[in-house]
């Protein structure tokens, strides 16, 4: 472990990678750190933090990939993290020793804005001119020596996809860590300097010492700075002081709200004068010609629909073989292990029905997550995702979301878990939270078996295939129809969002790198397994215990005796006949379920569901389905003594449901599954939060209280929907 080099003796040097969004930062990060990167969260917030080990000629450094941003003006959490990290305000993360500022060589002045702001934080810097090849193709001549001289820091031309660039960048980092150079910040006019002093003087004790001038400028210049949230400074007095300081800027003849960009750009224009020269006219951008087709007023939407169809279909069916393989693997493992533990039935059930089942239950989502993130990475890296948001924005803006919500919501139709993970592409935290809250309402593929079973058993035989498919469509549409008005309500009363701006740069189209896409898939897969896995596993064990215990052996004896009495056979005769033996086994399972804590809970809770027309059996099915809604099929199978191996196409289960009657109460003898009850069950499953994996991922992405809220509102909504269905259905006769 001991290394004698100077760099690794102390803690490794911290190097931060910053730049505007979509300019190839992450590509370079992946190229520089390779497999030595890890993803986590910044303490206390859900912004993901990417850190990698950067090997240097002498020792190593830690490279932090910060979220892409245009300026230090922070309106969102993502942007605030950049200011916080660069000013050393994140607990446990020292102020970086070096900032690598990546700028787009085809737009030097606009990209230097961020660099010039960071210069005020007094951190050594390197400037990378990325897309150097494209700049040359466009006929731009950039005088690097002159720029380096004017900026006072190393300027490295670079192509983020090329290995040679990586070597040049590593050398520059190594050199600059040894002999640090800082970018000269702008000379503010006196009015701004004075305003900064005024504001500092007004600050409460403790606050003023902790802030640099650069951070004070954020409070002074930004319309609503997210920086204010971290200060221990009362809102009202802060606003009054900021207002006072802004008047000082105004008295110097500047509009305080426009002063920073105007002065910075004036400064940058002088700084870069005669650095960039263009040989000839700007050639036609090929992105524009692609856009003419892809975002065309007429067929733009048709192309978008076609692309989404392919994505959706791939997530839905493409993951199928892998999911089957996982199911098969799970089944074989269970079949292999079960006999070994047959001497201890409780352990057997724990391992086979809970542990393996539980691991399988969340691993089965992994293929869909990987397929979806393959497409998300592909759409983002090519530049199409921004266009999709542009096309879809109008549909979502009325309820307070923006176009970025479309892809996560659509993918939630396959499965809400990858859908919720995909909300990370939404920058605005409140729009993201709102999307997370409604994503589980989209009818995911796990609901399909319930629809298929009930429609096949009750709707199709009576009303024909047309009404059946219409019902299936209505069930898929219901979630979305409920979700958008709900978001409107959430935004108005709960999240209290102001209308969110939607200013989005359309990045240039470009060919994505396979390594970047593979990284995105890997990251999402690992995070899902690591974080959601544990919660799902725990929930599965709890439900198993509720279904298994108390498991008194008296149940088995009583059931066997009843069975013998009804069949009029001896125990030996039954055991000799395979069918009879199986029937006895199923009757025992069914009796155990009825006597289990879950069975008793079902009977206790049933009155709540009575107004939806559910009997205790349906109630147990509903309760047992909370960890994973698809469990309803096998639970109903156990309840109706068919064994757990039934599926939605199983005729015996359909017949059992059709034949089910009330055993007690005023309806004794009448059929349980009437059309209003059936519709009620389907609506319940369409709206209810019955997925441990989804709740685990909401907890991870938005926090425990939002996971609880999501569970509560969806379950209440589902109950209400089922009751309305049953009551209105009965009224209509």
């Amino acid at each position, binding site marked *: 472990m001991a290394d004698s080099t100077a760099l690794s003796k102390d803690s490794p040097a911290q190097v931060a990678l910053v730049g505007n969004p979509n300019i190839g930062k992450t590509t370079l990060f992946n190229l520089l750190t390779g497999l030595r990167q890890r993803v986590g969260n910044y303490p206390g917030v859900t912004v993901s933090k990417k850190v990698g080990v950067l090997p240097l000629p002498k020792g190593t450094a830690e490279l932090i990939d910060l979220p892409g941003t*245009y*300026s230090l*003006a922070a*309106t969102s959490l993502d942007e605030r993290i950049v200011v916080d990290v660069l000013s050393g305000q994140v607990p446990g993360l020292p102020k970086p020793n070096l900032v690598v500022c990546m700028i787009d060589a*085809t*737009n030097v*002045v*606009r990209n230097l*804005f961020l660099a010039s702001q960071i210069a005020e934080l007094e951190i050594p810097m390197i400037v990378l001119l990325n897309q150097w090849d494209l700049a040359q193709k466009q006929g731009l001549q950039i005088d690097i020596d002159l720029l380096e001289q004017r900026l006072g820091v190393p300027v490295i031309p670079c192509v983020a996809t090329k290995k040679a660039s990586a070597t040049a960048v590593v050398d520059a980092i190594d050199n600059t860590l040894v002999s640090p150079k800082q970018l000269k910040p702008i000379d503010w006019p006196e009015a701004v300097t004075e305003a900064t002093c005024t504001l500092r003087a007004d600050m409460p004790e403790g606050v003023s010492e902790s802030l640099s001038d650069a951070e004070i400028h954020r409070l002074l*210049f*930004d*319309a*609503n700075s997210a920086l204010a949230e971290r200060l221990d400074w009362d809102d009202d007095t802060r606003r009054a002081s900021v207002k006072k300081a802004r008047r000082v800027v105004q008295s110097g003849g500047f*509009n305080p*709200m*426009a002063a920073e*960009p*105007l002065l910075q*750009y004036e400064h940058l224009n002088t700084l870069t004068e005669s650095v960039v020269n263009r040989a000839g006219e*700007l050639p036609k*951008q090929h*992105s*524009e010609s692609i*856009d003419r087709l892809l*975002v*065309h*007023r*007429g067929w*733009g*939407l048709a192309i978008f629909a076609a692309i989404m169809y392919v994505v959706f279909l791939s997530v839905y069916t493409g993951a199928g073989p892998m999911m089957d393989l996982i199911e098969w693997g799970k089944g074989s493992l269970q079949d292999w292990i079960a006999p070994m533990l047959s001497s201890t039935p409780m352990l057997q059930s724990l391992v086979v029905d809970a542990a393996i089942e539980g691991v399988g239950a969340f691993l089965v989502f992994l293929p869909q997550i990987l397929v979806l993130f393959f497409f998300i990475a592909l759409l983002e890296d090519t530049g199409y995702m*921004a266009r999709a*948001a*542009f*096309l879809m*924005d*109008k*549909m979502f*803006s009325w309820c307070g979301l923006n176009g970025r919500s479309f892809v996560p919501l659509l993918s939630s139709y396959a499965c809400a878990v990858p859908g919720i993970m995909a909300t990370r592409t939404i920058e605005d935290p409140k729009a993201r939270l709102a999307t997370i809250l409604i994503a589980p309402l989209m009818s995911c593929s796990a609901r399909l078996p319930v629809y298929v079973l009930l429609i096949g058993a009750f709707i199709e035989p009576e009303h024909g295939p047309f009404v059946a498919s219409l019902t299936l469509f209505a069930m898929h549409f219901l979630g979305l129809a409920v979700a958008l008005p709900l978001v409107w309500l959430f935004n108005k009363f709960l999240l209290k969002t102001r*209308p969110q*701006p*939607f*200013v*989005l*740069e*359309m990045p240039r189209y470009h060919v994505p790198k396979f390594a970047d896409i593979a990284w995105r898939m890997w990251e999402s897969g690992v995070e899902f397994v690591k974080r959601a896995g544990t919660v799902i596993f725990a929930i599965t064990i709890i439900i198993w215990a509720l279904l298994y215990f108390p498991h008194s052996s008296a149940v088995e004896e009583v059931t066997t005796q009843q069975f013998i009495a009804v069949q009029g056979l001896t125990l030996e005769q039954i055991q000799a006949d395979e069918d009879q033996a199986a029937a006895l086994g199923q009757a025992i399972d069914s009796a155990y379920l009825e006597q289990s804590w879950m069975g008793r809970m079902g009977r206790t809770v049933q009155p709540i569901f009575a107004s939806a027309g559910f009997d205790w059996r349906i109630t147990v099915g509903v309760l047992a389905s909370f960890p994973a809604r698809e469990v309803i099929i096998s639970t109903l199978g156990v309840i109706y003594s068919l064994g757990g191996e039934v599926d939605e196409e199983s005729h015996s289960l359909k017949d059992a449901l059709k034949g089910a009657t009330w055993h007690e109460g005023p309806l004794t003898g009448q059929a349980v599954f009437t059309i209003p009850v059936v519709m009620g069950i389907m609506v319940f499953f369409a709206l209810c939060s019955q997925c441990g994996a989804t709740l685990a991922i909401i907890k991870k992405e938005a926090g425990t209280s939002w996971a609880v809220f999501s569970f509560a509102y969806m379950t209440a909504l589902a109950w209400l929907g089922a009751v309305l269905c049953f009551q209105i259905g009965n009224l209509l006769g």
Partner: protein
Amino acid sequence: MREVPLHLNETESQLQNLMDATLSTLPIGQAARVKAYDQCNATDQRLMVMGLIPGVEVRKIRVAPLGDPIAVEFDGRCVSLRRTEANSVRLESA
């Protein structure tokens, strides 16, 4: 003598039109120069940071199929924004 005031009136009405012109009302394909911002709120500041400052020439490229948002181009950057946001950007002829 009568032609001069008439001419002036025309200029005035043209000026009036230009004063009313915003990025939202700019016809597709047309270019103009940014004159000022109405509010200088966070969205306006974001646009200025991206380089859409007074004096910069901006061209409206397209409108989304559903009528909103719009896409504009300045300094070789293509940016999408909503009409309500574009309303705040006042223009003068290029």
